[in-house]
């Protein structure tokens, strides 16, 4: 690509494709899914901003309830004559498949843009490969592949242009993350070019074919054996024409832009003997290697597939040099059991068909699954294999396969990146702005200089305390290196604390520059470094600079946002631009990025830029490493073998080195692993003061990370306790003479502060001091580590003795969900943890895809854990859309096995011989088991003991019946099924299934963690999003009200329904959980879950929950199905009459307040309507109560006072 300054932009692949899609579409149906969400978000934002398409109209963008819904809408829009598109990936594409067959079968021009991603198999992965698009091969869609950001832009247009002429719909795809999220400098297609490519006659023809009563036709008929087959073949000519039409569009584009593409593009020696065939971003490193080898005279080449379907066999063979002797086809997918992966079999077929006499040898290999790195060294390994006398077929590259020995050996040292490309790596903290600043830097260099620029960003799997790594390249030529930087000229560490945990200098090249954001100055910093860091700085002769970014940011009024400071320092040190030019460019970029946010934001950032260079200093580097401190190991001693051998490698960042043999063959993993990963991310941790503690247990209940624990124990258990271990008398009369301790897990706490905010015990002398207070971690770490270890060894109370339906009682039960990587202060996890405390030793959890499946099940570690006996929740995630059904399947299986076990046991008892040692007493044991009351905790424990006794007896009874019973004996003890998920699942994509499962009447419990947006994919609107809130896809405020899921469920009459909010009434939450579990039919708990997407200080989340209830926005209630209660009045309101206006609650949260500020009139209307919704609903609920009942007693909640009500009324009047 020749770079011209005109029309250049530095954008990512998603934007590159979406710009075209929006420009040439009239209807766009969307649904969020990583990594394609951004395409929908951009299209939605552009339409919201009034950006018009080629014809001057604003495309209609609509979010649907699922990808299946988006595909249906797409289909309908196309049939009715609109130019329509959608964006998706992975499972989303799978949900579109049925409609894709229809759209193709009806020869309808359309384009679906796909950020190609792995499909969930043994595990979910959000990362990129071709598994999803390969599943769409048989749909009849043409498939066009882009391998760079530029191509994602160019070929998106080729797809839209070609589909109109060809009538065959197109799937245009590029690699998820690697291309969709890579920021690169590209030449933009201007409107004239786009206009020239779109054929008006073809558009008119499309409209002519549309459904309309003026020219009625019928489509979607049902056909019989007599004609279906022939009709299916009728479209053949259209498919035969596609390759030619696509090439014609590519040629047209070339004439307009100078960028020439072909159906198959070849690079390398014209007389190549060894050729690699592949598609997607892997083309980058392959082209780099080929260029270098061919320049050295090696006869190698690479052939990149662009039009994959229809596969032009003749064009393929024509593109391959006639000298080719061996071909390696690389597939970025896996098709177990196939003769080879899809592209491989296509190539083999093409060669056999086209040159049956002299076909070259072909081998196939797999690479890059789920964004596994694909590097030049791997390309070299493939070329080596092609040169071998007997090259291996069906190989893998990029992993070590020590099981079936498919992998090629890779020697990383054989490839050095060229010096002409400057490379920089930045370590930032998730959400500290590092990535944003780096994207800005890439844009500055890409847009302002002659250099090409590339940015790629890596995140870890945790949402709290997570690390981001930015990889930036700048060079004179197009950058094809679609892999992480191995050797960097510049390394920046934006968080001092990372030095303790991570080898941030891993990529630093000899003589490179290291910039550290440090609270210690140039003369003091050295002694604060771990010895490993010191040694690397010395060994690699790094130039070492420090800047106190936090101070500069603070003094510039930017709070903790250090990104601008560090960005300025990067430019000052890297020398990519003249310093003055760089500073002017940074300011211009700031003005562009933050321009809408006001002068204050700009000025403060400008001030930070101006102060940064002066605050940066080169540090003195002594000749030898002197520190005694070592890098901190995140693995705790005593971990089980799997954790030590496998898991620890992952959390140390070395997961790539794990061989195939280390991995479970079926995705089954042990639980209880989070406790071994000590991340120690908090700066401050809560410290307990027993002198004023009132033993209420709330801190433990609300802790989102199970990092605050409460135990009650006999005083004798304190013998041998470490000095400094704190305890107090337990005040509850039920366990007289006991001691109690509230203990923090100092390395697992995220420092969110929710516990401190909920603590009701304030000092009489200083109200700011509570029974639990945040304090600097380092002042307490050693002592609290020792205390926590001791605390964990204290015995748990016997569950028989616990009053589990109370706050205190529940908190004396061991959490079997701990230390998740959820966002600090998460609003969901306290409910999940409570669930694990109440029933964790006897439940199966079906978990919908979403935040809870990520913090619950994303490797390396899982928070789901076991008690001392090894019991704990069994957890599984199926999909996003099917979670209720998945849970129902669990229930059916449990019931079937329980019922069979009971039958077998009864039969066994019937034939038991009292005189036979093996079977004597079985009859009595069977009666005890079959008649057991398992409605209480004690009953279940008793039953477990009886069943254990039975199991022991069965081992001695040699009969088929006994052996069969032994396989399902555990089912004689009651187990529960909890179906857990977020609102995106329950209200939208999974609603049909949820509805069906609730209607089934089976004994399942559904916990909806309602954050009121799609939290996991970044805050898109769901049907749970309240009226008047902004969210992605609702940039001007959601205009419709929140769906009342509880009402829908109550309509069945036999479903237990509770709406809860922990911060509003904790007792009610605990009651609702226990009642739901006790209800023998379906139960639904809708739990208000504050989320960072609400724009609140998460430390205050419980107070926001209280306001939500106090305003009547989130009324608390429990609905007992009529069969469960005596008086027939099943609906009970647990919160008092609204006592504050909705507006008071709403304006305390950025999601509403931002709209009130940006569009005050609109917000006024929506908030007034929302108040009206609340008033209406409250009236309805009061009617449902039948007679007014007072709120359930809870000492956090007081009855509405007359005075408060009066004040609320006046406030409302004044605000209106």
């Amino acid at each position, binding site marked *: 690509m020749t770079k011209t300054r005109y029309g250049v932009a530095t954008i990512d692949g998603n934007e590159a494709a979406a710009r075209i899609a929006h420009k040439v579409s009239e209807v766009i149906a969307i649904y969020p899914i990583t990594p394609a969400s951004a395409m929908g978000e951009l299209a939605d934002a552009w339409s919201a*901003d009034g950006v018009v398409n080629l014809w001057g109209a604003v495309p209609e963008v609509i979010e649907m309830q699922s990808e299946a819904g988006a595909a249906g809408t797409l289909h309908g829009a196309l049939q009715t004559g609109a130019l329509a598109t959608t964006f998706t990936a992975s499972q989303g594409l799978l949900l579109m498949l049925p409609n894709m067959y229809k759209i193709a079968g009806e020869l309808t021009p359309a384009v679906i843009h796909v950020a190609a991603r792995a499909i969930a198999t043994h595990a979910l992965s959000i990362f990129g490969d071709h598994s999803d698009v390969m599943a769409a091969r048989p749909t009849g869609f043409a498939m066009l592949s882009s391998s760079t950001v530029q191509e994602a832009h160019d070929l998106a247009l080729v797809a839209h242009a070609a589909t109109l002429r060809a009538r065959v719909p197109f799937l245009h795809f590029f690699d998820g993350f690697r291309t969709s999220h890579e920021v690169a400098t590209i030449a933009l297609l201007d409107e004239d070019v786009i206009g020239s490519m779109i054929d008006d006659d073809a558009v008119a023809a499309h409209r002519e074919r549309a459904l309309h009563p003026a020219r009625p036709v019928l489509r979607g008929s049902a056909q019989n054996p007599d004609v279906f087959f022939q009709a299916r073949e009728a479209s053949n000519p259209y498919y035969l024409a596609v390759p030619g039409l696509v090439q014609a569009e590519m040629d047209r584009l070339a004439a307009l832009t100078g960028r020439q593409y072909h159906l198959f593009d070849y690079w390398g020696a014209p007389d190549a003997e060894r050729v690699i065939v592949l598609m997607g971003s892997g083309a980058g490193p392959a082209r780099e290697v080929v260029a270098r080898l061919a320049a050295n005279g090696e006869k190698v080449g690479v052939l990149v597939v662009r039009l994959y379907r229809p596969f032009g066999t003749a064009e393929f063979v024509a593109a391959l040099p006639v000298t080719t002797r061996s071909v390696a086809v690389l597939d970025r997918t896996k098709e177990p059991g196939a003769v080879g992966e899809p592209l491989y079999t296509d190539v083999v077929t093409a060669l056999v068909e086209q040159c049956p006499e002299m076909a070259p040898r072909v081998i196939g290999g797999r690479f890059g699954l789920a964004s596994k790195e694909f590097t030049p060294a791997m390309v070299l390994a493939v070329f080596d294999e092609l040169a071998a006398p007997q090259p291996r077929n069906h190989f893998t590259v990029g992993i070590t396969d020590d099981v079936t020995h498919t992998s090629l050996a890779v020697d990383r040292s054989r490839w050095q990146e060229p010096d002409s490309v400057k490379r920089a790596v930045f370590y930032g903290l998730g959400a500290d702005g590092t990535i944003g600043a780096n994207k800005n830097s890439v844009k500055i260099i890409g847009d302002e200089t002659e250099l090409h620029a590339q940015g790629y960003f890596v995140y870890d799997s945790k949402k709290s305390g997570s690390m981001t790594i930015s990889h930036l390249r700048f060079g004179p030529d197009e950058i094809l290196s679609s892999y992480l930087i191995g050797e960097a000229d510049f390394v920046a560490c934006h968080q001092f604390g990372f030095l303790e945990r991570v080898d941030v200098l891993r990529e630093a090249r000899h003589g490179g520059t290291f910039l550290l954001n440090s609270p210690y100055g140039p003369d003091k910093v050295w002694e604060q470094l771990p010895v490993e860091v010191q040694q690397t700085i010395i060994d690699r002769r790094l130039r070492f600079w420090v800047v106190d970014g936090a101070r500069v940011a603070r003094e510039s009024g930017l709070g903790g946002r250090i990104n601008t400071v560090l960005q300025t320092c990067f430019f000052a040190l890297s020398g990519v631009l003249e310093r003055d030019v760089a500073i002017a460019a940074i300011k211009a970029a700031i003005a562009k990025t933050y321009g809408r946010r006001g002068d204050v934001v700009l000025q403060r950032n400008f001030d930070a830029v101006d102060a940064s260079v002066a605050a940066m200093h080169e540090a003195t580097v002594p000749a030898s490493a002197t520190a005694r401190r070592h890098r901190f190991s995140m693995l705790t001693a005593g971990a089980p073998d799997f954790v030590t051998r496998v898991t620890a490698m992952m959390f140390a960042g070395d997961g790539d080195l794990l061989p195939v043999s280390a991995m479970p063959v079926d995705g089954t993993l042990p639980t209880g692993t989070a406790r071994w990963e000590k991340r120690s991310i908090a700066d401050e941790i809560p410290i307990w003061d027993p002198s004023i503690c009132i033993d209420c247990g709330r801190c433990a209940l609300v802790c989102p990370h199970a990092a605050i624990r409460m135990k009650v124990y006999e005083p004798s258990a304190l013998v041998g306790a470490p000095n400094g271990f704190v305890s107090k008398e337990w005040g509850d009369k039920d366990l007289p003479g006991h001691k109690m301790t509230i203990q923090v897990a100092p390395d697992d706490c995220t420092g969110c502060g929710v516990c401190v905010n909920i603590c009701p015990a304030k000092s009489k002398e200083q109200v700011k001091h509570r029974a639990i207070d945040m304090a600097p971690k380092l002042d307490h770490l050693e002592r609290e580590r020792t205390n926590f270890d001791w605390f964990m060894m204290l015995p748990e109370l016997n569950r028989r003795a616990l009053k589990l339906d109370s706050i205190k009682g529940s908190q004396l039960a061991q959490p079997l969900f701990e230390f998740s990587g959820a966002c600090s202060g998460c609003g969901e996890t306290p409910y999940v943890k409570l669930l694990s405390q109440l029933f964790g030793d006897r439940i199966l959890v079906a978990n919908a895809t979403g935040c809870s499946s990520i913090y619950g099940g994303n490797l390396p570690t899982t928070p789901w854990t076991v008690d001392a006996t090894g019991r704990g929740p069994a957890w599984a995630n199926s999909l996003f859309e099917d979670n209720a059904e998945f849970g129902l399947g669990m229930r059916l299986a449990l019931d079937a096995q329980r019922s069979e076990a009971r039958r077998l046991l009864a039969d066994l008892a019937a034939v038991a011989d009292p005189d036979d040692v093996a079977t004597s007493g079985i009859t009595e044991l069977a009666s005890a088991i079959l008649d057991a009351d398992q409605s209480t905790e004690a009953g279940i424990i008793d039953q477990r003991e009886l069943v254990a006794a039975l199991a022991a007896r069965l081992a001695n009874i040699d009969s088929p019946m006994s052996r069969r019973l032994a396989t399902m004996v555990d089912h004689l003890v009651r187990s529960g099924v909890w179906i857990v998920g977020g609102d995106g699942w329950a209200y939208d994509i999974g609603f049909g299934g949820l509805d069906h499962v609730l209607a089934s009447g089976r004994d399942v419990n559904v916990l909806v963690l309602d954050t009121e947006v799609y939290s996991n994919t970044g805050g898109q609107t769901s049907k749970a999003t309240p009226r008047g809130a902004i969210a992605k896809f609702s940039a001007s405020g959601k205009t419709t009200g929140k769906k009342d899921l509880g009402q829908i469920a109550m309509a069945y009459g036999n479903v237990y329904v509770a709406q809860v909010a922990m911060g509003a009434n904790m007792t009610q939450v605990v009651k609702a959980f226990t009642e739901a579990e006790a209800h023998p039919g379906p139960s639904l708990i809708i739990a208000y879950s504050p989320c960072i997407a609400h724009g609140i200080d998460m430390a205050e989340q419980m107070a926001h929950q209280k306001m939500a209830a106090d305003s009547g926005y989130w009324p608390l209630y429990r609905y007992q199905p009529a069969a469960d209660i005596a008086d027939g009045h099943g609906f009970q309101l647990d919160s008092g009459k609204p006592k504050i206006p909705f507006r008071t609650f709403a304006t305390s949260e950025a999601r509403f307040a931002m709209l009130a500020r940006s569009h005050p009139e609109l917000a006024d209307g929506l908030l007034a309507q929302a108040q009206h919704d609340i008033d209406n609903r409250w009236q309805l609920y009061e009617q449902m109560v039948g007679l007014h009942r007072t709120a359930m007693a809870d000492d956090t909640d007081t009855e509405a006072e007359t005075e408060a009500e009066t004040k609320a009324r006046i406030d409302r009047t004044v605000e209106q």
Partner: protein
Amino acid sequence: MTTDLRTRYLGLDLAHPLVASASPLTGNIDTLLALQQAGVAAVVMPSLFEEQIEHDAMAAHHAIEFGAELSPESSGGYFPELDRYNTGPEHYVEMLRQARNELRVPVIASLNGTTVGGWTRYAQLLADAGADALELNVYLVAADVTMNSMSVEAQYVRLVESVRATIDIPLAVKIGPYFSSVGAMAQRLVDAGADGLVLFNRFYLPDIDLDELDVVPHLTLSSPGSIQLPLRWIAILHNRINASLAASSGVHDATDAVKLILAGADAVMMTSALLMHGPEHVTTVLAGLQRWFNDRDYLSVAQAKGSVSQLHTPDPVAFERSNYMHALTSYSPSH
């Protein structure tokens, strides 16, 4: 006969002394029109708070950035970028323009700054937007125990001087009563360029929530009969400093207004009573004012203004006495 109620305040000709002071009622065009309809002589818009602008801008900025880059699935943050944030002074300026266009009576803008740059920048903005006058709402709680009164006063003076140097429209300064020497301070402010003084500001004051033991900001509306503080100082300052005087705090009815006029007020500002009784309360007070002067055959308000000020009362010391002295002597049989 009908008394001529016309007055001059800050060089502006007002139909009478009753002015609606800064409150939610003066921040909305509908209620502003209602106030005019009810007969108010001028309006003071709510303050443009520099601190609020900065806070809102940064809050919106942080909200948009919050959570961005937290995970690969939410790399773009949790909120959509909005087309506008309205965190700057634009909304206020627009409201001022609209008020200026739609009202016949003078519109006085009000400003509360935090930095010298902010005071002058925004003062210029409000003057350019057509404000008939500007009221500086100076609000400074000198909580730093090392900061003495001289430096606080110097800060006030510098601020007034810098704004005066920036704008040409009439300038009023609204101050609180908490100076060691209110009179001297008033004089310094006039010397610094103030055309008038508004006596006095009512501040948000802290209160303690006895349930939560939290400190909560509290703004109580003034109650009738609480005009004595401005009454004293207007009476003392009348004809002693060369500037307009406006009374603020506690004016609820016509008798309050009359007393303040007699003490020397050029304008009488109302807030709490209007919030309690609505804009139409102006009509009632105005009628009462007119009636009082008519009944006593005053030719004009100008005639009455300051007639019971300290300079013009037979008992000037009365304005200086403490209540204790007064109480003691009034019960003394020898008096």
